[in-house]
């Protein structure tokens, strides 16, 4: 059956939408502002003489533009989004409502602290929850996202080694399965990276780690390990790893990207961790927003706590103060400032709203359901797919591409075919240590019914692949707003902004 072509290019509810620059009505605006009062201008020599070049549109046109654009997006609100390692769980709207209370939204970072006591209390309460849930000594609230939190943790480690006369420690040991941010962050601290391979069951081989620690001796600054790791497995020997790292005089950084799997069940302080960032936009349900904003508060052990960056909220007697300058007061040894103002305050409000809603019991139930959902998918999908490691898994399960061997279908093809089935594909080709990886993270906010629908689609795709219907996969997706996009072309001759068509330029030149 061929689908009809239309004169408009639209297909029913799927609209083609031009760029705003192609909808320009010169002089139009969607914002009516009050008259400009008469006043003597004081711009000096820098008045702008050329127009900016923004297109003019009316309010209805703008609202329609973005509504149509939004309809081209897959989202958690609209469907199952099992993107491994990304934790695409439901984003409660209560959190949005709380962040918009005027007492939170309409406050300025530099209004007198005496007039922002509620904001200080919010930051302190959010910090209290994070400290209780991890058992750690201190938390640096200001990092803006996971990678920024890693940076904070490694800088604290650097500062601590420097303070202890251990400035020669310049090596970070990272498993091969780590997120790319780990080695990238290490480089920002002037560190070099040593990788260690995973063992056959997808975990750190403690014997290899010990050998690596011995090899690099007193040049090792820290070991960074994601736990649960990127294969969705808990590092069983975590405490032994911590002991070995400490015995070598190094610090143990735990990447908290997967904290959602264990929250409310154990405290990472009891694992011997020195630093861990917490992605509030993963574990604590603040929206991903198409690529942020997130927040990456970093919890620290007593040894690292003195080096935490400013600002630091301080509870004193009846009220709160904030130390905004490194080298002063409680921030005497602080490593400096990592972010403007007071960190991602609006994200803290949302995360606290979520933590209070869930409570200690709800958070434990959430990690339990997340792990149950992942193991259920692993059990059912194993009927046709090939799991990369034996279970139980934690909050996500990973399959390799052995089940596709000889079919002519790749992991990427499976992902694109899932789009036509109405699902967001899992994370693919990550972790790098699993061949043709499909990393599936269902989260706790999916119903059994949603999981069963996904299983039905996934098993049917696996059977189709094995039946030799590779051509159908290579043509997928066919039902999405766009089919496969040419990424090579995009990179070879980058077009990164709209520019006026040549005819307009010629006309402008003639004028």
């Amino acid at each position, binding site marked *: 059956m061929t689908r009809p072509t239309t004169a408009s290019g639209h297909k029913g509810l799927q609209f*083609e939408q031009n760029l705003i*620059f192609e909808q320009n009505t010169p002089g139009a*605006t*969607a*914002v009516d502002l009050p008259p400009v*009062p008469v006043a003597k201008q*004081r711009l*000096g*020599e820098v008045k702008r003489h050329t*127009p900016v070049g923004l*297109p003019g549109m009316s*309010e209805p046109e703008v609202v329609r533009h973005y509504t149509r*654009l*939004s309809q*081209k997006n897959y989202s*958690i*609100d609209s469907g199952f989004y099992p993107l491994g390692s990304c934790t695409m769980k439901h984003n409660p709207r209560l959190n949005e409502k*709380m962040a918009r209370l005027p*007492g939170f939204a*309409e*406050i*300025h970072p*530099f209004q007198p602290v005496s*007039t922002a006591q509620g904001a200080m209390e*919010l930051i302190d309460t959010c910090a209290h*929850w994070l400290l209780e*849930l991890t058992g750690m000594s201190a938390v640096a609230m200001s990092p803006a996202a996971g990678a920024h939190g890693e940076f904070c943790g490694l800088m604290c480690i650097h500062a601590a080694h420097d303070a202890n006369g251990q400035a020669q420690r310049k090596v970070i040991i990272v498993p091969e399965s780590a997120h*790319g941010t780990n080695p*990238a962050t290490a*480089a920002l601290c002037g560190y070099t990276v040593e990788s260690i391979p995973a063992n056959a069951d997808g975990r750190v081989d403690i014997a290899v780690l010990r050998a690596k620690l011995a090899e690099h001796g007193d040049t090792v600054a820290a070991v960074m390990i994601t736990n649960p790791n990127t294969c969705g497995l808990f590092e069983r020997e*975590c405490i032994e790893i911590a002991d070995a790292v400490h015995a070598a005089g190094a610090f143990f950084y735990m990447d908290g990207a997967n904290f959602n799997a264990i929250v409310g069940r154990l405290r990472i302080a*009891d694992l011997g961790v020195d630093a861990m960032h917490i*992605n509030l936009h993963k574990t604590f349900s603040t929206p*991903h927003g*198409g690529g*942020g*904003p997130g927040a990456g508060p970093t919890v620290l052990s007593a040894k690292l706590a003195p080096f935490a960056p400013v600002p630091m909220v301080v509870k004193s007697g009846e009220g709160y103060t904030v130390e905004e300058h490194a080298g002063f007061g409680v921030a005497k040894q602080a*490593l400096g*400032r990592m972010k*403007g*103002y007071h960190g991602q305050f609006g994200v803290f409000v949302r995360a*606290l709203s979520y933590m*209070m809603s869930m409570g*200690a019991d*709800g958070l434990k139930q959430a990690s339990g359901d997340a*792990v*149950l959902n992942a*193991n*259920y998918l692993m059990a059912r999908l194993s009927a046709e797919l090939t799991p990369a490691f034996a279970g*139980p898994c934690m909050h996500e399960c990973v399959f390799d591409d052995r089940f596709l061997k000889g079919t002519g279908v790749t992991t990427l093809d499976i*992902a694109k075919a899932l789009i036509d089935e109405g699902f967001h594909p899992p994370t693919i080709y990550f972790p790098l240590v699993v061949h043709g990886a499909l990393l599936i993270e269902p989260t706790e*906010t999916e119903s059994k019914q949603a999981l069963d629908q996904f299983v039905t689609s996934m098993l049917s795709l696996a059977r189709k692949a094995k039946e030799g219907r590779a051509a159908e996969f290579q043509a997928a997706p066919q039902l*999405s707003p*766009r*089919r*496969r*996009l040419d990424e090579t*072309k995009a*990179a070879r001759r980058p077009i*990164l902004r709209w520019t006026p068509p040549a005819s307009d330029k010629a006309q402008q030149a003639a004028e």
Partner: protein
Amino acid sequence: MRYLPLSETNRRDMLAQIGVSSVDELFRDLPKKALAAASFNLPNTMSEIEVERALGVMAAKNMNCAAAPAFLGCGNYRHHTPASLDYIIQRGEFLTAYTPYQPEIAQGTLQAIFEFQTQVALITGMEVANASMYDGATACAEAVAMACRVTKRSHALVSGRVHPHYRDVTQTQMKFLDVEVECLAPDPYAVEDLIGRITPDLACVVVQTPGFFGHLTDYTTLGEACHKAGVLLVVCVTEPVSLGLVKSPGEMGADIVVGEGQSLAGPMTFGGPGVGLFATREKFLRQMPGRLCGETTDEDGRRGWVLTLSTREQHIRREKATSNICTNSGLIALAFSVHMTLLGDAGFQRLAELNHATACQLADKLEAVKGVKLVPSAFFNEFTLALPKPAAEVVEALAKKGVLGGVPASRFYPTYPELANLLIVAATETNSADDQIKFVKALTEVLS
């Protein structure tokens, strides 16, 4: 628990399918010692009403700028937000989507980023812009790092009129790299001799417009001097509304422009989350940090968008990446872009004029208060006043009278007693004539 769909029956059925008898069994890899030690001194689940009540009490303890005459700036500005903006960014398809890694089902986010990149390039007068950074301060640090990569030099000079948080974040970020960040002392009076400090080992000079104390300065001559010495000019913009009325950094010869988009992207929310703007010249493209969205076509030849040039980024290049940034500030960038789209050229210019005129009116009135001196002669919507007594005390006294009357410079420069009497005041279109009268009256009373 309202966010958890599984019923007890579901859980039992699923455990049976997996072949274990309890959820605890699935956690058997966790160390028993740590499981046994776990206890959490935290409350249990709460209803929506209870959460709203508790957070409502906290929010009410803050004096909010919507309910009081407020004249606060220093990189964070209160502007009017059109109603349609918040509606658009709360659409679930934007709010609850991830980074657009599967472009076939993320064209909405991608097209919006492409439009955002174009808008940022247009207002800054640059050739290309990225998809956003965390905030203006971290974008400034990234600009210095990029300038070092481009010039293969490792020395940056930062003007004393750059936002102190931008300066501090840059210094902190370079702390453990072999980069010297030389920061000039804050001086709202004397013009800095930046050109005289250009040396052949310098990677970049970092300046800000409008400056932290409000000054408007044309950096064209500085840019020319920089380029003669192979030095990059980095220009920070903390108030992008100014670009509707003043010459763009690109016109002044900037090589990298960084800024904070919050003022056009919605409420201040105590300073975060904001959105870092980052724009540069095309020839430096491959040294840029952060995500980039580019145009391409799909298999049917239709125009579409993808994330591109990712060989610069951490998930491909790991320790050789241009930055470690992953999550950035997507939704705030969208808010910024929606506002720019709503304004258009006409609205953007009008908003800038309205801000400048309001600030000029206020400056006229404040200059007339006994003992008050206006410091910068040319400014946009923010200026510094020299008061006859410490500004920190004045601000507290004003707050007691219900007015949020500026930010004392001493909050940023505790070790510069000569700046203690300086007050930094901003005025925007949100400040009514009545607000201004209240401020002037309160200040007159406090100073008398």
